[in-house]
């Protein structure tokens, strides 16, 4: 059994496509129209087999869950980065709204930002001894 596909909700798939590619730098893997929605997945250009699916949050339960996490300041998922300072400066220059600036959290340095699609996302860099 392998973890190949993860999924998060977004409030608009076109907005999500723009943010996750142009801002975060992920590569689109699948983009298949399904009525008014899309089967939309992304992967990191830095390698690995995992893909991220961005689902529409049209189910009321999904919307409620997503908004509850957002309003409590809780990230919906986390991505690893090699250089937090560089990533923070790059994303800030692109206008990304951070709710937590880079913070030493013991084994990791972490930061949190909004993905413009209803989610807070955590990025973390493993601390080196």
């Amino acid at each position: 059994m392998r973890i190949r596909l993860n999924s998060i909700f977004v409030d608009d798939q076109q907005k999500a496509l723009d943010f996750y590619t142009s801002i975060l730098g992920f590569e689109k893997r699948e983009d298949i129209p399904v009525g008014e929605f899309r089967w939309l997945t992304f992967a990191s250009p830095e390698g690995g087999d995992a893909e991220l699916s961005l689902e529409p949050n049209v189910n009321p339960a999904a919307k409620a869950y997503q908004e509850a996490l957002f309003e409590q300041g809780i990230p919906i998922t986390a991505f690893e980065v090699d250089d937090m300072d560089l990533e923070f400066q790059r994303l800030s220059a692109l206008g990304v709204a951070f709710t937590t600036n880079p913070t030493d959290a013991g084994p990791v340095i972490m930061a949190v930002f909004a993905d413009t699609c209803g989610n807070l996302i955590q990025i973390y860099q493993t601390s080196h001894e």
Partner: protein
Amino acid sequence: MLTYDRLIRLCDARDKLRDLQQVELSVAEIATAAAMSRFHFIRQFRALFGETPQQYRTRSRLEMAKHMLVNGEDSITDICMAVGFSSLGSFSTLFARRFGQAPSKYRQRLAGSAEQLAPDCMGLLRAAWERDSQFSRSQDASD
């Protein structure tokens, strides 16, 4: 950095923008309620939600209209007014632009199929597989 207090105020503003009981509230009034200047409010809202307050309001209204079309029997005109549009023509144009079909055709297509309004991850994948034979063949080849 966006403080938690400001995050909550922007979320409250978002709720006002999609509240059909508050359709008369202007963006400026909502900005004032959020204790921000109109300029600052629009900029911060866009940074957080990826669209301006007015864009968000319009998108929310169209989404609500979509559900009302499929789940109810009100006339398109009544739905248009209920979600805060004053012009049927503008509503129909914006609806078609967003969902790819005029409201009447959208209702015809999805009548009695409310579950299609909220596909889940596996439902999307399954539908994509069925609709895209090339996608299906590439999946078979990789197995």
